[in-house]
């Protein structure tokens, strides 16, 4: 039977933990707001760029110069590919990290005959795939604290260059898409070769520059912006996931405190009752 002191100690320790989880929840809530604004502001550009790219590529599909563009070329057989995994640098965010890691791994296993390399953004993804002996071509950290466009652009330039050089035949990105504070959904998307949205209507454009010149400048930018948006989505998701997880932890701590307090009171009451019995029986023995 634990003594009263043991109970008090346990309550105090749970309270301390609860204070930490509460503080982490508050911090995440503040960061979430900023990250959410950033991702909402970044979506229009990414969408518009994707549409513009699709329009140009469709309108100019016949031209040989366009087919020559390295970032549009479809390889006949995909043997080697890069998976850009966007995870968090830190844990305590519920299922956030394992979600993206497992999802990416599952996707890679489904692509039979393709050797994957991991280009990791975020420490948790790197750790996960290193433990499982995947080959890691790049490791980038500290993106989610305050995402910087130039950092992401450097990763985009690296994978684009490797694709253009023929070192790899495809590039994918795995990240948690920010749906709402309560839901984040795993997304695995193809980045290279640039997937073009299907649409029946083609517009006849007046080109100020030849289509292949426009595409040559649009395509690298598209890769950058896709990764940039993914990083922002992931950052917002990370804070949302951590906030939800820490909220659950704080609530759980309250429950534990309640339960232990009840037990403690019961034990105290039992000892009081026992003492009274002792006193009463001692008194009656004197009669």
């Amino acid at each position: 039977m634990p003594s009263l002191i043991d109970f008090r100690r346990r309550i105090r320790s749970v309270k301390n933990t609860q204070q930490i989880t509460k503080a982490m929840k508050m911090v995440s809530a503040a960061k979430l707001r900023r990250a959410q604004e950033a991702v909402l502001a970044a979506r229009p550009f990414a969408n518009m760029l994707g549409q513009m790219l699709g329009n140009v590529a469709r309108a100019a599909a016949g031209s040989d110069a366009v087919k020559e563009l390295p970032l549009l070329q479809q390889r006949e057989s995909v043997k080697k590919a890069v998976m850009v995994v966007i995870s968090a640098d830190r844990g305590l965010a519920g299922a956030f990290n394992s979600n993206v890691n497992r999802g990416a791994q599952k996707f890679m296993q489904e692509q039979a005959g393709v050797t994957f390399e991991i280009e990791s953004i975020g420490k948790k993804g790197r750790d996960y795939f290193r433990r499982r002996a995947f080959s890691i071509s790049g490791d980038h950290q500290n993106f989610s604290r305050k995402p910087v466009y130039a950092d992401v652009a450097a990763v985009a330039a690296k994978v684009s260059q490797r694709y253009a050089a023929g070192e790899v035949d495809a590039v994918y990105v795995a990240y948690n898409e920010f749906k709402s504070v309560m839901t984040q959904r795993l997304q695995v998307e193809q980045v290279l070769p640039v997937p073009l949205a299907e649409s029946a209507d083609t517009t006849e454009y007046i080109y100020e520059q030849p289509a292949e010149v426009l595409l040559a400048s649009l395509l690298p930018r598209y890769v950058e912006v896709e990764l940039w948006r993914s990083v922002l989505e992931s950052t917002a998701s990370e804070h949302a996931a951590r906030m939800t997880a820490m909220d659950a932890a704080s609530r759980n701590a309250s429950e534990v405190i309640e339960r232990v307090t009840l037990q403690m009171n019961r034990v105290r009451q039992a000892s009081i009752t026992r003492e009274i019995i002792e006193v009463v029986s001692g008194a009656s023995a004197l009669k």
Partner: protein
Amino acid sequence: MAGTFELEVATPDRLLVREQVTDAEAPGRNGYLGILPDHAPLLTELAPGILTYTTAGGKRSVVVGGGWMEVLPTGVRVLATVAENPNEIDLKRAEAALDRAERRLKESGEMDIPRALAAAERARARVAAAAQFGR
């Protein structure tokens, strides 16, 4: 009188303009071009410069640091690598950047010339916009 069309100006980190406008003038790579309602579909690369447009509330402008413009039957989309309202420009910083870029061009040597040229162009556009539209 064909009325208005929708103008959208977006950068990777925000949507700067989404308004009904009666005309727009954009800094195309091959020179400024004016857009009126019902313009034919057009695609162009943009050079650093000043994008002006007219809304019901009067003439406005934003500085763009290069990008692309797509004219569609439904409206005009400008995807800028960088864009700012003139009142957001830090004139001192822009002037310093222009100075730095010009000095680099003169020294040239091992410098990345296209990059320095682009930087100079961007800085010039900012300075011009700040001068034209005041603070």
